[in-house]
């Protein structure tokens, strides 16, 4: 049943229905409402535990401990909170702890800014976490549930990235799967190894040069293997709930398009609207939604973009001193093609700078030419 609710509250309810053993959070805008809602569920006896920590660093550490002890564990954060977690973010992936975290995407200091962009989670892209970027409120809710299933079957942590305010604070109609429904979709967490006095193991050991690289390579190989799992889980979700969200990457009116707008997160909604308008005028335009930044769907992106004339990569982050990160990934993915589309990089929406449909229109106008562009819009 659909209800009209703030998306953070809906996400928290979805998480509660996944029956986590441990939730640990620290308040930070714009993810605070997720923590507050989960705290209220705990206060009402609907959640097994809620740890109000003294920092985000402690939150993620606590859920690592919880996961290692065999429990399902969750946290939510944003921006500076995620940056403070950085050291543990890497450790969680290296230790193969299948924790789930929702990131309400927000700019990083300095200057201080509480509004949306994706620099915070994009900066963690090399950590070994699966990262899924959500287009809509409903996708945020559904991906939070899918994330546990993906994490627990791949033994990789999953970051569910939802644009701060645009998604976290929007009140709209969403459907939150019930506890009974989630139970049918998501099996109980039964880790093969855990901290158990009956069967003592050592976790988080140190590795000499002889072994270290092998551990890192394993994480990478398992990311590649996780690609099919992400698609599969999205399909299983569709079978049960009638909704899917594009697996790793998805085209919209892209088959015969010459000009494509590509990006991640809530901007995709605007792009689809503009494409519908332009299609009505007979323009051959389409959208590429990149849902999974890690693992990066290089092959899928290549197949979807092959034969296009010009592709605009729009993103709310930048690798200062280099290129926009998603742009660089797409360029890399297209390189094996003999005839490559022209690819332009558009950087926008940083620190909450508005990205109205007008901006998407402008981008489509700018990529009519053959020259590749880099524009901070």
């Amino acid at each position, binding site marked *: 049943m659909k209800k009209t609710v703030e998306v953070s509250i809906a996400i928290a309810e979805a998480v509660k229905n996944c029956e986590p*053993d*441990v939730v*640990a959070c620290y308040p930070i805008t714009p993810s605070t409402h997720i923590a507050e809602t989960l705290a209220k569920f705990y206060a009402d006896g609907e959640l*097994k*535990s809620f*740890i*109000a*920590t*003294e*920092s985000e*660093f*402690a*939150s993620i*550490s*606590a*859920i*690592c*401990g*919880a*996961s*290692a*002890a*065999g*429990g399902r*564990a969750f946290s939510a954060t944003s921006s500076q909170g995620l940056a403070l977690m950085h*050291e*543990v973010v890497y*450790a969680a992936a290296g*230790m193969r702890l299948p924790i789930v975290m929702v990131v309400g995407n927000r700019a990083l200091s300095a200057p201080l800014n509480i509004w949306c962009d994706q620099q915070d989670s994009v900066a963690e892209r090399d950590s070994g976490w699966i990262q899924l970027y959500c287009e809509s409120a409903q996708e945020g809710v559904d991906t939070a549930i899918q994330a546990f299933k993906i994490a627990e079957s791949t033994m990789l942590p999953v970051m569910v990235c939802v644009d701060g305010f645009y998604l976290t604070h929007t009140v709209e109609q969403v459907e939150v799967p019930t506890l009974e429904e989630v139970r049918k979709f998501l099996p109980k967490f039964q880790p093969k190894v855990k*901290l*158990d*006095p009956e069967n*003592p*193991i*050592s*976790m*988080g*050991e*140190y*590795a*000499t040069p002889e*072994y270290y690289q092998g551990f890192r390579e394993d994480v990478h190989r398992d990311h590649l293997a996780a690609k099919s799992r992400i698609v599969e889980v999205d399909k299983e979700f569709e079978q049960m709930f009638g909704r899917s969200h594009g697996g790793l990457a998805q085209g919209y009116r892209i088959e015969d398009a010459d000009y494509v707008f590509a990006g991640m997160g809530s901007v995709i909604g605007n792009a689809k609207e503009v494409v519908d308008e332009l299609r009505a005028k007979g323009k051959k335009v389409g959208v590429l939604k990149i849902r999974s930044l890690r693992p990066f769907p290089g092959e899928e992106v290549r197949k979807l973009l092959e034969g296009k004339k010009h592709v605009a990569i729009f993103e709310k982050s930048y690798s200062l001193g280099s290129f926009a990160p998603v742009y660089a990934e797409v360029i890399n993915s297209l390189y094996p093609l003999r005839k490559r589309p022209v690819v332009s990089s558009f950087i926008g929406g940083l620190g909450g700078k508005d990205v109205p449909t007008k901006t998407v229109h402008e981008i489509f106008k700018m990529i009519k030419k053959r020259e590749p562009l880099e524009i901070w819009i």
Partner: protein
Amino acid sequence: MEEYFASGHTACAGCGMPITVRHALNVLGKDVIVVNATSCLEIVSSAYPRSAWGVPYIHSLFENSGAIATGAVASLRAQGNEHTKVVVFAGDGSTYDIGFGVLSGMLERNDDVLYICYDNEAYMNTGNQRSGSTPFGAATTTSPAGKVKHGKMQWKKPIAEIIAAHQIPYVATASIGYMADFESKVRKAKDMKGARFILVLAPCVTGWNYDSAKTIEIAKLAVDTGLWMLYEIEDGKFKVSYKPQQFKPVADYLKMQARFKHLSEEQIKTIQEHMNKAWAEVKQ
């Protein structure tokens, strides 16, 4: 008796840390989960693919063992396990300094964790750098004895008192020189609920620079000179565990260790006075 910390680890001969761990685990038994901060202990006991641990063990990072323990115990309880104890072993660097915020959070929430800090009074894993625990006058590589500075010029952080200020059920100090006292404190803390903290003096042969046969002697002398006070704070009540009938001069302790060899008689006198004052302030 079954041992839970096996021989074959790579700690230095005479190291106080494995003695601490082995005796604590003998008291705690097998129904525990050990959380370990990055330290010498982690390095000597857990080089993949070997492990010295006969109980479940997790190391994560230098400064987060308090929170790893918080999460582990919350997870056990959420899964219906009310019996397994979670115990942290951490050095003074992570306890006094880099992990202090996380530890303070764990204490404030009164999480059901026994936290044992083995205190060797410097960052020994990186080769003897000063920590908040390094005592006045001790030379380390970052508080060297130079022409104008004579080792660490600040007093040791009173960590047990700071921890006691969190009003947790149990705080105790111990020394591996008084093993029966340490073991009885671990035994008492084992069956208590909530956050418990034991600070154990565990000499470091290389950092303190003394003959490796003298670890226990030095750990004993620290107590016998009055420099290391053995006490408990149980439900807020302070109690000295042992007061030597007559204190030995602090010089006896200081002169056994090369980290203090540069100290002048005047500086030794300052340390003696500081120690006298500490005991004079104790309400017994």
